[in-house]
C-alpha cells in the first residue's frame, strides 16, 4: 500500500504545474527560466493559466497590499496538495522595497512558503534549483508549510 502512495507522490512531483500569476519583477527571471536556454519544462514544470489545475503557487517577488487578496484567492482555488515557492528578497523581507510602506514586508508570514530562493532577482538556475527542492519535499510526503499555519487562515479575502 505504502509503495503505491509513494508512486503517486513521485508522479505528482514530476509534473509540477504552477499557477501563472505575477506579483512582481522576479517574474522576468521566471520567464527566462521558461526560455530556451534554461528551459524548465525539461524538469516537468509548466505554467497553467488556471489555478484549478495548479500544484504550485510562485510568489514572484514583491507583494503589495492591493494584490494580496488576489494572491490569496488564487491560492485558495488551487486543489490540494499545493505548495508555495517564494522568489527573491522581497518575498522574504521586502528586499529593496523594505522602506516602502505600500509593499508588505513579510508576505510569507501571511502565506508561508515551502522554499525561498534568494536573489534580486534570483537567477534562472536558482529558480530551477528551488523547484527541485519542492519536488524533493513532495516525494518525501512532507506537508506544505501553508497547511501548517499562516495568517491567511484567519483572514477574509
Amino acid at each position, binding site marked *: 500500500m505504502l509503495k503505491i502512495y509513494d508512486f503517486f507522490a513521485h508522479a505528482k512531483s514530476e509534473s509540477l504545474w504552477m499557477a501563472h500569476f505575477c506579483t512582481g*519583477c522576479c517574474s522576468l527571471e521566471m520567464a527566462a527560466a521558461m526560455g*530556451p536556454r534554461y528551459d524548465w519544462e525539461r524538469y516537468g514544470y509548466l505554467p497553467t493559466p488556471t489555478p484549478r489545475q495548479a500544484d504550485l503557487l510562485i510568489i514572484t517577488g514583491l507583494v503589495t497590499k492591493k*494584490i494580496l487578496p488576489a494572491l490569496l484567492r488564487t491560492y485558495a482555488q488551487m486543489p490540494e496538495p499545493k505548495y508555495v515557492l517564494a522568489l527573491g528578497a522581497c518575498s522574504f523581507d521586502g528586499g529593496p522595497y523594505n522602506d516602502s510602506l505600500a509593499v508588505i514586508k513579510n508576505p510569507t508570514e501571511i502565506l508561508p512558503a515551502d522554499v525561498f530562493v534568494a536573489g534580486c532577482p534570483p537567477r534562472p538556475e536558482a529558480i530551477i534549483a528551488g523547484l527541485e527542492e519542492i519536488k524533493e519535499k513532495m516525494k518525501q510526503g512532507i506537508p506544505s508549510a501553508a497547511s501548517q499555519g499562516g495568517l491567511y487562515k484567519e483572514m477574509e479575502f
Partner: protein
Amino acid sequence: MQSLYALLQMYETEYIEDYKKSWKKVKLSNAEDLLKVAKALKANGLKTIATVSPTDFLEKNIIEMNYFFEDLISKRNCWLKCDISRELDKCEIESITPLFKGANWHEREAYSMFGVKFLHHPDLRPIIISQDFYGKAPFRKDFDWDAHEANTLQNIQTIVDAFKTEENENDKGIDAESSETVLNWGPTHPASGPIRLKVHCDGEDVISIDPDIGFVWRALEHLVTKKDFIGAIVAVERLCFMDNINSMIAYAQAVEEIAGTEITEFAKWMRVLLGEVSRISSHAMGMGGFYNALGLHTVAMWNMDMREFFLDFLESYSGARIATAAIEAGGVRYGLQENMLEELQLALDKFDATKDDMRAIFVKNPTMKMRAAKQGIITAQEVEEYSLCGVVARASGVKVDVRLDEPYAAYDKINMDYVTQKTGSANDRLVNLFEELEQSVDIIKQAKKHIEECIKSGKFNPTKDHMVKVPKKLPAGEAISRVEWSRGEVLMHLVTQEKATSPYRLKMKAPSFNHTMMLDKLLKGQTLSDIPLIFGSLYICQGDLDR
C-alpha cells in the same frame, strides 16, 4: 507662430528663463492664470502635456505645481510653475484635462498622492494608491507612514472589503434581463500581468473599459526620498526591470545637472552602449509579449534566446543579469575590460544570425497582418492629444525620439534617424518594434567601434575614465532630465534642498501610464478577443505604470 517668450510675457510672471536647449521655464504669479496660459500654449502648438508634478514645500506652506508642455512637431517645450495653498480644503487648481486629454490620469495621480483638487476635472477618482490611502495624500511631507502602517492587517482588510463591495456591485445598474455584464480582465490573466481591466461588455462587444491599476505600486517616488543619492539608484532602476539602464541614466543626468558635474567622454559612450543593450533586452520581451498575448509562444522563445546573449554582456560587465545598478551620477559604475566587448560581439552575431528568419516568419507574417493591420489604430493627432510617446507614437508616423530631439550622452555623435510607420495600427507597432531592434543593434555597432578605436589610440582609458567624483551633498536646486526609454520618453523631475544628501522630490513620468489611458478609447466597440491584441501591442509594463 508667436514666440514662446512673447506669449508668456503677456501674463504676470515671477520669471521667464531659458532652460536647456528647447525649454522655457516660467513661474506664474497667480495660479488663476493657468487655464488661460494653457489655452494660449495649446493654440501656439504645444499640444502635449508630459506630466503634472506637485512638490510639497512644508516650510513655505505651499504646493508648487509643475506642468511640462511639449510640442512634438517643432520641439519647443515649456515648464510652467505656479504655487497653490497647502491647506487641504484650499488646495485646489483649475483642471487642464478639458484642454489636454493626456493630463487626465496625471491629475488624478496628483490628487491621490498630494490631495490637490482639480476643479472641473471630468473624473476625479483616486488612482494607483490602494484603498486604505484614499483621501490621505500619502506623498505629503507631513503624512505619517509609520502610524498608518501600524496595523497592516487592518489596512489589508479595508482593501479586501472594497474588493468585495465592488464584486457585489459590479452588475448593479445593469438590466438583469440584458446580456450586459462587467468582466474582470486580470490581475491573474496570463497575458495581463498585474493590472485589472474592468470590461463592461454586452455579450462579446466591449462597451467601455476602466483600468484598475496600482497592483505593483511600490511608492518609488517616496522611497527615493528615504535613501541617499546613490542608494536611490536601486529604486530608480526598479521603475521597470526590462529596461533599467535608461531609467538610471535619466536619474543620473538630473543629479549631475544639480551638482554641476560634466562626465567623461568615455562614460557618455558607455551609456549609449549599455542603454541600447538594455533597450534590446526590453524590445525582445515586448515583441514576445505581443505574440504571447495572442497565444503564440514561439516568438518569445526565439527572442529570449537572443536576449540571453545580451544579458550575458550585462552580466560580464556588472555581475548581474538584470539588476545591474550600472549607471551612477558621475559616469558608469565599472570600467570596461576587453573580453566584455567580445561577449557583446557574440550577442550581435546572434542577432544578425536570427534577424532574417525573424522578419520573414513573424514580422511579415500574413496571418498577423490580417489580424492586426486594422486594429487599434492611433492617429498622429491622438498621439499629440494623449501625450503618447516611444514606439506607439512613432508607429503612428509622429517623429519623436528624445535621442534625436534633445540628444543626451553621446547620441549627438551617433548616425541615426527616426524609425516610423504610417498607419499606427497594432501591426505597425509590432513592425516598428522590430525595426527599432535593428536600429539599436546598429547604434551598438557604432558605439562599440568608436570605443574600440579610442581605446586603441589611447584617447580613452577604459579602467579609469568611467567615473568622475560627484559631491555627496548637493546644493538646493531642481532639474528635469529626459531620456528615450524603451517604451518612450521618461521625464524625471528632481528637486533637492540645501546640503541635501537625499532627493527631496523625484517625479518619474513613465510612458505606460499614458498608453494605458488609451485602452478605453481603442477598445470601445471592439470585441473581447481584441483586448489581448491591443493590450499587447501597446507595450505596457506594470512596473512603470504604477511606479
